[in-house]
């Protein structure tokens, strides 16, 4: 319903009665448009890539040509009719020509740009919508978006459970193998627990045990067996005074745990008191777990947190892995995969491509929370030959952070602050057989001004093959009415 009226009106006015200018001067450049969709590779099932022309002019005409199809749109707000868009995409290559008329009435044409139509993308994504804030969480929602249209629905919102007296935070949604019949997210504080959907049925568990540090935090669902690897974190944050980075986030302690779904039991993967283990990620065969860690041998007790904030720039997280036998649930020895510290860098958020050949991660100067570091970029590893490279095609002067591979491994979705340095937005990029990424493009919106007007941030984007089948109200009733089942602690099985 949202924005339909606007768009209908805009479409009605813009698509009608437009004619291509007969004679024009030329501008030796592509037009400036927002979002920057010039020369991008797009999925064959993506919604229209609407944009605003940012060139100063009195009138605008945009012509989309794809094979025998042609659409002419009038005005600086270029909104493409969805049905015509579908036909355009079938041509495989859409050429976009923009014309602008100046005050004297003469038209000029810009160098055309293209949309190259490529592989399909998972039809759904989900993300958390959060205000840019530090501590408060008055209104948070996990939402799903249909990428083939502009339809966005709420999966769950904390406003459905929390009361004025008791606040509720929700975070870290995750799916098993991109399907929604097995998914999870965490509910903190009031009515707290980890909400698990197992074969379509709702459960709420409390993974905090006497022997573990906290409830589960960053999850990685085992691809073949009923396990979930999670980090345990004790997180703190601090505000920057005069920096483009707004926050400094760190864990003064963190460990890794394995949650056994069938037995509702938690066991330790890593809990070295000197290591800050974090961000688990399974390989597609489920026989190896990647994670990051930093060795901190500082003091304990009250002062630890403050000391850590002071020493934060020395925190260089390295990439590690552990082999795993899912049938016997036994772990192999720890292996360092990438010594980021040697490069005065810190690596975080490893995510392995579905074919198991590549690992994409964030790299920055220090620390464990790339979202709030302007210098955070992407680094990609070729797991077959061990080589790695900074992914310049994806990186921007602002923070690049959480990312996710599509189920077919052809697309990557990532969150970035490239638009204004503060509000995290979602971008997509295609990866070819040589491991080269195409120019990233922003999540298409019905209204091209949406991203500029929207004062909230996107967080934790994940691909899904299907929508979530449980309704928000079902989640709310369940979370409100059920207590979290305590998980059992199981001692570690031998390495």
């Amino acid at each position: 319903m949202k924005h339909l009226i606007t768009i209908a009106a805009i479409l009605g006015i813009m698509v009608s009665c437009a004619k291509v200018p007969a004679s024009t001067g030329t501008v030796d450049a592509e037009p400036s448009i927002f979002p920057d969709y010039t020369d991008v590779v797009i999925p064959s099932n993506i919604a229209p890539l609407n944009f605003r022309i940012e060139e100063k002019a009195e009138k605008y005409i945009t012509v989309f040509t794809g094979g025998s199809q042609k659409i002419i749109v009038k005005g600086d707000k270029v909104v493409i009719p969805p049905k015509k868009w579908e036909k355009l995409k079938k041509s495989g290559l859409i050429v976009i020509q923009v014309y602008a008329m100046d005050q004297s009435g003469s038209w000029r044409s810009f160098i055309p740009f293209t949309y190259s139509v490529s592989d399909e993308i998972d039809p759904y994504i989900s993300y958390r919508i959060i205000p840019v804030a530090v501590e408060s969480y008055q209104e948070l929602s996990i939402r799903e978006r249909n990428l083939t249209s502009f339809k966005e629905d709420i999966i769950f919102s904390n406003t459905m459970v929390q009361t004025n007296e008791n606040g509720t935070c929700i975070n870290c949604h995750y799916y098993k193998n991109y399907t929604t019949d097995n998914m999870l997210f965490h509910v903190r504080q009031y009515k707290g627990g980890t909400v698990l959907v197992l074969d379509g049925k709702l459960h709420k568990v409390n993974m905090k045990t006497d022997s573990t540090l906290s409830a589960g935090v960053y999850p990685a669902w085992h691809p073949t067996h009923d396990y979930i690897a999670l980090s345990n974190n004790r997180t703190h944050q601090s505000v920057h005074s005069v920096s483009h980075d707004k926050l400094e986030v760190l864990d003064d302690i963190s460990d890794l745990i394995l949650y056994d779904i069938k037995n509702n039991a938690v066991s330790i993967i890593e809990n070295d008191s000197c290591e800050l283990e974090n961000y688990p990620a399974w390989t597609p065969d489920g026989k190896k777990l990647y994670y990051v860690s930093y060795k901190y041998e500082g003091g304990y007790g009250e002062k630890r947190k403050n000391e850590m904030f002071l020493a934060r720039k020395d925190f260089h997280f390295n990439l590690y892995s552990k082999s795993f036998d899912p049938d016997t649930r036994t772990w192999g020895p720890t292996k360092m995969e990438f010594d980021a510290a040697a490069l005065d860098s810190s690596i975080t958020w490893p995510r392995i491509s579905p074919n198991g050949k590549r690992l994409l991660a964030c790299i920055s100067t220090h620390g464990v929370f790339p979202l709030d570091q302007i210098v955070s970029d992407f680094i990609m590893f070729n797991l077959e030959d061990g080589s790695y490279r900074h992914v310049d095609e994806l990186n921007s002067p602002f923070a690049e952070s959480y990312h996710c591979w599509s189920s077919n491994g052809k697309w990557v979705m990532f969150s970035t602050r490239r638009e204004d340095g503060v509000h995290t937005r979602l971008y997509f990029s295609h990866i070819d057989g040589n491991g080269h990424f195409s120019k990233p493009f922003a999540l298409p919106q019905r209204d091209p001004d949406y991203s500029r007007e929207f004062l909230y941030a996107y967080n934790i984007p994940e691909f899904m093959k299907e929508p979530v089948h449980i309704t928000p109200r079902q989640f709310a009733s369940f979370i409100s009415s059920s207590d979290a089942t305590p998980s059992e602690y199981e001692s570690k099985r031998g390495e």
Partner: protein
Amino acid sequence: MNQKEENKIPVLISKTRWILPIAVWAILSFCTPQFLQKVEERSFFEFDLFWFCGFLDKPSGILSWCSLFFTQFLYIPWLGALVWVLLLTLSAELTRIVFRMPSQISFCTYIPAAIFIAYNMSMGYMIYLMNHPGFFFLPVLGYLWALLTVIALRKAEKPVTSIVFTVIWGFAGYYVAGFYGLAGIAAAAIDKAVSKNKYRGRMLSLAVAAAVVILAPILFLGTTTYYLSTAWTIGIPDHVHSVSLERLQLPIIIAFLFFLLAPLSGMLEKMASKSIVYIQCTALTAAIAIPAISWYRDSNFKTELKMIQAAENLEWENIPALLNRLSTEKENDSSWQPTRVMVVLKDLALIKTGQEGNRAFDFEDGDKDQKRRWDVQMSMQIGWIMGFHYGIPGLCQRWCYEESMLFGWSNTTLKYNAMTSILFGNTELANKYLNKLGHTLFYNKWAKKQRPLCNDRNLIEKTAPYDQILPLMCYDDLISSDQEGCEIFLKRHFNGPSPQNSTPLYDRVSLLFAIKSKDPTLFWTRFFLYLDSNNPEKIDRYYQEAAYLYSNLENNGLLEALPFDDQVKKLYDSFKATSSKIGPKSMNEARNLFPANLRHTFFYYYYYVNNLNVF
């Protein structure tokens, strides 16, 4: 008195009812303009379809949008007050007309309006906790919607039409106005039930209305994300606090109970004229007494609002004057003290006007508790002002974001976020906020003025207020959390290690914080830095007093080395003499024992201003 004369009394009283709105408007406009402006500053309304669509997500969203539309007029307090009072009067008069109430009981219709006035004007510090968009105008607009519902449903006279219309209007009304839509449906059903017209199927009509009232919220539950128990009261102003909501919503619910009784007013016609006189007089008394008794009165709150307003408008000279005026008014009130908000704003203003060295201790110090029932952090009142004007833009932004999360975006937080983005040189982000303000009726000019500053460092350096903030940003980036203690955070910040590229302004501010900390070592460090970088022709009075006191206490040989004024020496001797007579006393006791000239010295501050709660 005969019966005829008795009947005239309520009519005569009724004719005076126009005085009430005029009086309320005058009081609002002239006595509480800062409060009204604060309501407006904490709200936001833009002429933008995209923004409007954001209100379509839940029932009563459209009414909130309308309320925000009216709230923007409080930018000019008398105008906003006029609009509000007109709407209140309309609600009362329309009630009388719609329910054909005799003028003998006309003041009864003013009771809901009186409750709405009391609700808003009793808020005081609660204003900092209200997070319902357009809360100020919401009840009265909801009331008018409910009246409209009664009028509309009267048009459908045939039973079938009436039932269909009730269902459609009921559901639509709930979507538009939430609680008020349901109240309208209930009142319309009662209206029909007691109607003198031979209306067929009145019981069925009541049953349908009851069904709509019960079912509409349940039906909408599937499409919205609000908490289940609030479904029937959605639209009644909400707030952020761990106090049960129901207690605060009760006045609005009571006002609507009066509304539901309005259709029954026809029964009063049969009453004896004496009873009518009694009812009219009681209603008049209630209409006056309800707002009068509950009206929030606190001179500290009022002065705080004025001081905050002055800081927002960069009228720094006004801030110490406001504090002075209040302390003069309260001269005979031995229990009076300023609040910490007043004290820290005064210090900021003195720095901005370069008077801190000569006037810092001219004012009463204190930590008077704010007159409120609920906890309101200092950071929620002035966190962004402190962060911004003390050159800690990260802190300013942090508080703007926290505020926006809790209360939604407001004109104030958008303004400060735009200004901090300009300071950071982040044009894209600054434009984001300026675009929003550009769509408003009253802030578009301000936004237009700021645009040239984006990405023009030279211009920023010459333009107020940035010209006084950039010199304070001379330190290397620090990370810290103010832990919601705004003043404590500032102390820690300025009492920390001095930056290598310290500026004269930074040294002045640090010296003020050092002198206030009563730490001689810190004072001497900052004092010499200040002398070095500012090279004053004459050392400011209070710095002389501190240096003189510490030199005496430490016997460090500086008494001869520094050029102390004779006046400082005399004051010190005089203070010493008085002090030795009085002996150790608490702050409140000492205040009454020392003459003003000695009270307004650093010596007095050092010895007698102790144990202040800072936040």
